[in-house]
């Protein structure tokens, strides 16, 4: 649905050149929620603005929903929706009027636009306030208006630039539901975020960008597995040494560490390792005290790939 090859963009100013995006290849499947993660200044917005035909790439190519970005930008525009990071409404605008006009910009008739606006106000729960000026909305309400404006023409692909930044946890969860609903209606979603937990909870696949290049790509689960596998801690009631001897060298364990209270096992896949560990201990007549599975977080992934924690950058 989205395919890019070597997409590049540099900003030149008096103070020098910023290579915001330095050759990005990526592929997004139809019907996916694709997460685009990275710290401030990683180049996420630049990437999105290129894909949304707002700025011309310095190099590379892209095909979006079957249309070539450079050769048929008009076609791309008809097939995509874009929701900017910084919002898209004036304080004094009325959401309902903006929705109707936005729909008409796509060549849709007035009657149909009014109908779609009513449906969108219903779906995004705007009905109650959409007749008021935008400055009277809450942050979450105004963000929902932005998204409704971005999808009023039912695009094939939607680009959402940090749709949840600045929202409280409840509005954030609500927004995730909206995004999932759009996907269920058949849209392919390309969403940027700073939040690892969001990428983890919402996205089918993600890529991590840092300093203009992709440093990792995959499903959240794959990425986490790729980095550290899973971590299992065992308590074996004093038989620590015996247990270590027993499990060391087992195929499903990649390494073992003795700790104060027991053992820490690094395994490829915790789900399958646990029953095997239990069986092995059982067979050797050792009683299991406690067993705990820890999954590495995307934070660990980011740390591993960039050498920095996402939270500190």
């Amino acid at each position, binding site marked *: 649905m989205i395919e890019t090859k070597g997409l590049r963009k540099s900003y030149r100013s008096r103070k020098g050149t910023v290579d915001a995006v330095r050759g990005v290849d990526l592929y997004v499947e139809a019907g996916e929620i694709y997460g685009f993660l990275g710290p401030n200044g990683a180049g996420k917005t630049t990437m999105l603005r290129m894909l949304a035909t*707002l700025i011309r790439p310095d190099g590379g190519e892209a095909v979006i929903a079957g249309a070539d970005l450079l050769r048929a930008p008009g076609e791309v525009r008809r097939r995509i929706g874009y929701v*900017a990071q910084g919002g898209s409404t004036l304080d004094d605008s009325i959401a309902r009027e903006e929705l109707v006009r936005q729909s008409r910009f796509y060549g849709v008739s007035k009657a149909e636009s009014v109908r779609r606006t009513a449906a969108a106000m219903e779906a995004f729960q705007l009905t109650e306030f959409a007749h008021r000026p935008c400055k009277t909305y809450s942050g979450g309400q105004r963000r929902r208006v932005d998204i409704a404006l971005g999808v009023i023409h039912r695009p094939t692909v939607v680009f959402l630039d940090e749709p949840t930044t600045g929202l409280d946890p409840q509005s954030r969860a609500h927004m995730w539901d909206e995004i999932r609903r759009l996907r269920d209606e058949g849209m392919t979603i390309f969403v940027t975020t700073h939040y690892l937990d969001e990428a983890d909870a919402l996205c089918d696949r993600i890529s991590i960008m840092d300093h203009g290049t992709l440093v990792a790509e995959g499903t959240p689960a794959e990425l986490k597995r790729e980095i550290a596998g899973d971590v299992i801690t065992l308590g074996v009631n004093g038989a620590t040494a015996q247990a270590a001897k027993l499990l060391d060298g087992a195929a499903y364990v990649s390494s073992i560490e003795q700790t104060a209270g027991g053992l820490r096992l690094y395994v490829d896949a915790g789900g399958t390792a646990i029953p095997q560990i239990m069986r092995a201990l059982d067979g050797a007549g050792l009683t299991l005290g406690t067993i705990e599975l820890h999954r590495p977080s995307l934070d660990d992934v980011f740390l591993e790939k960039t050498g920095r924690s996402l939270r500190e950058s």
Partner: protein
Amino acid sequence: MKFLRDTWLVFQGQIMNLLRQPVWIIVGLFQPVMFLLLFAPLLKPALSAGGAVSDADVYRTFVPGLLVMLAIFGGLFQGFGLIAELRAGVIERSRVTPVSRNALLLGRSLQDVVSLLVQAVIITVLALPFGLRVQLVDLLLAYLMLGLIALMTSALSYGVALLLKSEDALAPVMNTLSQPLLLLSGILLPLTFAPLWLQRVADWNPFSWAVDGTRALFAGDPGAPEVWQGLVITLVLAVISTVWAARMFARSIR
């Protein structure tokens, strides 16, 4: 067809924005009305030196200049509204749609032309009690000239706003541009009083031609060469600045 439809949509949206804040039409009228009430009376003695006598003569000379000034300023400062829209992300939202880029500019500029014409009508009506008289056809031609001026200056302002993207940069540019244009156009006083060198410099100011043309129309002399000269000059410049500004709107992948 699509271009006309899109232009209408953009125009309509802008009119809605304006109607939500109609106070701006009044605020925009404040200065010209002050000039009309407080400055024009001062002109009578000055103009009688040049041969004009009656109140009607004074207003026939002064009102056209005032209207041209209104058109110039009304247009040149439209860029500020566009910068507010840029900042709010409204322009970006329009640019990702297939809407015609030329329509994004023209719809806005036409709204500015309409507001200017509304203001021009109000000023004209306010000048009637002072003895201003003008033929309807001449008045309509004068309004055409004013509309072209407003189209030119508002498009210019939008283009520069898209280039500079900040109010802080736009304000000095527009002030530097408008002051000499204003002084050298003979708007407040006809340049017939000016020394020759100043008149030669003013010949290079398109608005000076526009003012002369508008004055000829208010004087009931539509056949005067100033009229067609003024119309041609403003038309050409309006086209150039509109095309340029529309290209600024399109600056992205076409």
